[in-house]
């Protein structure tokens, strides 16, 4: 739960910026998207190494593979469009919060780790999908970049559904 509260601040920053009429530009969105994917890859690498639960490990491997593939597709497109990701308060906050979340996960072991990781994945994917719908997709101006975000969204939804299923199955074992 602590990890979820920490993560919320990054996305609140994004929606607060949007509410003040300061929608992020494509270069800033690029940085947010790459960072958001990278943060989940880092959490996946930790879970893959630390968890002893086969379902949790398989999910973690899927997060590493899929989010790496999304970063690659995004980076290829951004290079073609000559858009350089631009650091901004939201992407910086995502990175900082991601590091805090990792530190919290590192302090846990066994079933407590699995539960905290899956809770984090459910919360994180819910927030990412919310940010895509409310801010990132509507604010993106380049049609190809916007199409890429729209294309990636259903994969994140599939991740969320799978994360919820595993979270629920972990709950039943205790």
């Amino acid at each position, binding site marked *: 739960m602590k990890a979820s509260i920490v993560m919320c601040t990054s996305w609140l920053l994004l929606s607060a910026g949007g509410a003040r009429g300061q929608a992020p530009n494509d270069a800033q969105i690029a940085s947010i998207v790459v960072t958001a994917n990278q943060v989940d890859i880092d959490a996946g690498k930790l879970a893959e190494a630390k968890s002893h639960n086969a379902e949790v490990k398989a999910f973690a491997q*899927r997060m590493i*593979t*899929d989010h790496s*593939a*999304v970063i690659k*597709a995004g980076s290829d497109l951004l290079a073609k469009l000559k858009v350089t990701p631009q650091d901004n308060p939201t992407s910086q906050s995502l990175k900082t919060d991601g590091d805090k979340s990792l530190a919290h996960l590192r302090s846990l072991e066994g079933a407590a780790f699995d539960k905290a990781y899956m809770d984090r994945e459910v919360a994180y994917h819910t927030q990412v999908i919310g940010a895509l719908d409310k801010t990132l997709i509507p604010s993106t101006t380049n049609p190809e970049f916007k199409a*890429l975000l*729209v*294309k*990636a*969204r*259903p*994969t994140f*939804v*599939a*991740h969320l*559904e*799978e994360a919820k*299923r595993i979270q629920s199955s972990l709950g039943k074992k205790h």
Partner: protein
Amino acid sequence: MTRRAWQKLAAWAVVVISLAMLGVGFAARSRTPTSYTVTIDAARFQPPLSVVRVGDVITWVNKDLVPHTATSRTGGFDSGAIEPGKSWTYTATRTGDFPYLCVFHPTMTGLLRVK
């Protein structure tokens, strides 16, 4: 007609009917297989239902950003990982309904119906 004439006629009928049945069977076997494509995009199989006949060829083309599989829930076929930009082809060998899914993203489902 004499009894012998009837017997002769019946024998010819058997020959003609057998040849006709053989012809139908041959036509069915020699039917040119049809090719079908299922596109995988935005975490969906499109079309979600494919109706084919034994011998037809189905190709799953992954146009998505991430790897997927087409894996029968009831056995029969499993593509393994289909990387983005790659495809996997299967020839239908037996009749039946084959519900399938992506094992990486189990919310993605489809149905292959082989007639």
